[in-house]
């Protein structure tokens, strides 16, 4: 009897069947009218079929593995919650890093979900569309799993209660919000360069690998699980980022200068955004895995360095900020924490000064800068606080027009001088914190003049609740702004020591040890 062997399709063929030939040339309407957004940026594409997806995940496999990830994640979260896992974290100070996470990162995940859905519609190539569609679903999953994982903390700790409202209003949250809005309002190719390449491939390892490993080290299995579960999708997203870059560069030589400009811009914007992660690593983990500087060297200088060596064959060079970042890795975590410490009355989380052992750790990790520039300040503030004179800045800071971070970064060649850059445009002055942010502004000023800078908005009277009268006698502007933010003063802000969080944690931990 003749046996007819039915050859199983290989992975590449299976994937091709899913992503090729599903699209068509439109006839009722011109293609340019159906896909109006994928040309104005100047990127030239000649053959969309040259698009190569490195991960060839079919829909069937996608659902199967994502479902498995979800089952694992919720099993761990349930166990963590049922066992009061939050009492097993090293110290409740750590939980303040999660408050930053849910207010700053989680809303960005949702924005990313919307943006990938939008961009997935705009490419005329089916391969890119499928990749964006899967990523849009992933981003929604990250948003949901982060909320579910952190909702248990919200039952016990302050500051988690209104993350979405805060994201649109609170001064430091305008940094991630404006970063996302800048990316999501760009054209589809710039968007993929910004988020898929510069953010996901070049930078997210710094948040989701060493910081999340640090969360595990501090006993937080909830954050570890959502963090690593999200990052398992990121591995796929990173390959989309690398593919879009290669695809643009292989399609037409005219694309090179545009791509290089986007890489320079978005690497810099991402690095500014990561300032807060630097501070979370160095100041907010009671037990530390590695310093920010060490993470930077491993995941940026070494890994990203290898990537750019590879891209050199297309004529791409390392991002323009490369030399400056090698200097800033020594400073940025200290400068950021010092800023939050002095504006701790206006933050939605608690701040503190490092203890003696922590100062010594920082001195050891930053031998060239910490003792010289940062330790004296922190020790002086500790002395003052001990005398009942805890230092709070009462005047609002000057912000960078582009990254919207207070202008606390120093000159690349002199860590004792604040870096000031400015541009005159249409009769107004615009200030930026760095050459990187100034270049971004100067390239597209009409976009950045629109920045909703929290300090300027407060001074215009736009950050008070309806009905509040700023001219009334005894008006307290800080109190009015905190009301508008939904930050409860005396509960969500100020020092960790003496906070409700600190007291509750101590009492609960005690009752976890015995019956009284």
């Amino acid at each position, binding site marked *: 009897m003749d046996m007819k062997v039915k050859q199983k399709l290989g992975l590449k063929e299976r994937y091709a069947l899913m992503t090729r030939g599903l699209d068509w040339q439109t006839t009722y309407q011109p293609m340019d009218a159906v896909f109006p957004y994928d040309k*104005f940026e100047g990127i030239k594409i000649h053959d969309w079929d040259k698009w190569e997806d490195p991960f060839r995940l079919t829909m069937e496999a996608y659902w199967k593995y994502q479902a498995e990830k979800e089952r694992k994640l919720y099993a761990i979260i349930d166990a963590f919650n049922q066992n009061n896992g939050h009492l097993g974290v090293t110290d409740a100070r750590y939980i303040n890093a999660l408050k930053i996470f849910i207010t700053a990162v989680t809303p960005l995940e949702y924005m990313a979900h919307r943006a990938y859905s939008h961009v997935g519609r705009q490419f005329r190539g089916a391969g890119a569309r499928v990749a964006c569609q899967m990523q849009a679903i992933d981003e929604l999953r990250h948003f949901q799993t982060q909320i579910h994982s952190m909702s248990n903390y919200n039952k016990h700790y302050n500051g988690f209660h209104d993350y979405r409202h805060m994201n649109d209003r609170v001064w430091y949250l305008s940094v991630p919000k404006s970063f996302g809005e800048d990316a999501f309002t760009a*054209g589809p190719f710039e968007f993929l360069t910004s988020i898929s390449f510069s953010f996901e491939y070049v930078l997210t390892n710094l948040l989701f690998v060493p910081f999340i490993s640090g969360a595990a080290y501090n006993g937080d299995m909830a954050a570890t699980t959502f963090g690593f579960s999200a990052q398992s999708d990121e591995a796929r997203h990173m390959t989309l980022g690398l593919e879009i870059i290669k695809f643009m560069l292989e399609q037409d030589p005219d694309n090179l200068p545009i791509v290089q400009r986007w890489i320079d811009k978005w690497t810099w914007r991402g690095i500014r955004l990561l300032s807060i992660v630097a501070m979370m690593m160095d100041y907010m983990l009671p037990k530390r895995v590695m310093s920010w500087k060490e993470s930077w060297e491993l995941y940026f200088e070494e890994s990203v360095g290898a990537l750019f060596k590879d891209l050199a064959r297309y004529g791409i060079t390392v991002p323009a900020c490369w030399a400056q970042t090698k200097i800033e890795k020594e400073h940025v975590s200290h400068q950021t924490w*010092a800023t939050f410490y002095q504006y701790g009355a206006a933050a939605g989380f608690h701040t503190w000064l490092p203890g003696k052992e922590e100062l010594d750790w920082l001195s050891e990790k930053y031998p060239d800068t910490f003792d010289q520039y940062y330790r004296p300040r922190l020790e002086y503030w500790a002395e003052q606080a001990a005398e009942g004179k805890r230092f709070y800045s009462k005047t609002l800071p*000057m912000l960078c027009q582009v990254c919207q971070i207070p202008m606390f970064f120093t000159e690349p060649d002199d860590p004792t001088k604040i870096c000031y850059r400015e541009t005159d445009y249409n009769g107004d002055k615009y200030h930026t914190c760095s050459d990187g942010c100034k270049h971004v502004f100067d390239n597209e000023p*009409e976009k950045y003049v629109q920045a909703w800078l929290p300090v300027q908005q407060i001074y215009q009277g736009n950050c008070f609740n309806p009905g509040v009268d700023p001219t009334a006698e005894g008006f307290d502007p800080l109190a009015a702004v905190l009301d508008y933010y939904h930050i409860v003063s005396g509960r969500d802000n100020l020092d960790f020591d003496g906070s409700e969080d600190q007291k509750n944690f101590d009492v609960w931990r005690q009752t976890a040890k015995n019956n009284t």
Partner: protein
Amino acid sequence: MTVIAIKPYVGEVRDRVENFHGNQLLFIGWEDHLFFASPYAFPFPPAMRFGDVLEQVLPGTYGVHPDWSKVDWDQAQWFKSGQPWVPDVNKSLAENGLKHKDVIRFRTPGLTGIKGSFS
């Protein structure tokens, strides 16, 4: 290129001077004192006397620093947009040529912050 978009547009300037109810913004930084995280932003009426900024406003902002009581304004060096500049304390901000969102800094020679750390 000022606009990269599907069609040209004019961005809305959200912090133009008309929005500040008669005030204009002035940014002020104290050199060599990184104790204060960043330069500060102030809304001032353009007719305000420059000396009043030094005497009435800045002490509330910088007074907590141990160097503040040692500041000698006769020795202070001023910079506007990074260039040397000499203000007249008895003239108004407008008469001193200060416009909306100008940035000025002052350096107080000999004062270098906590234990000489420039903080």
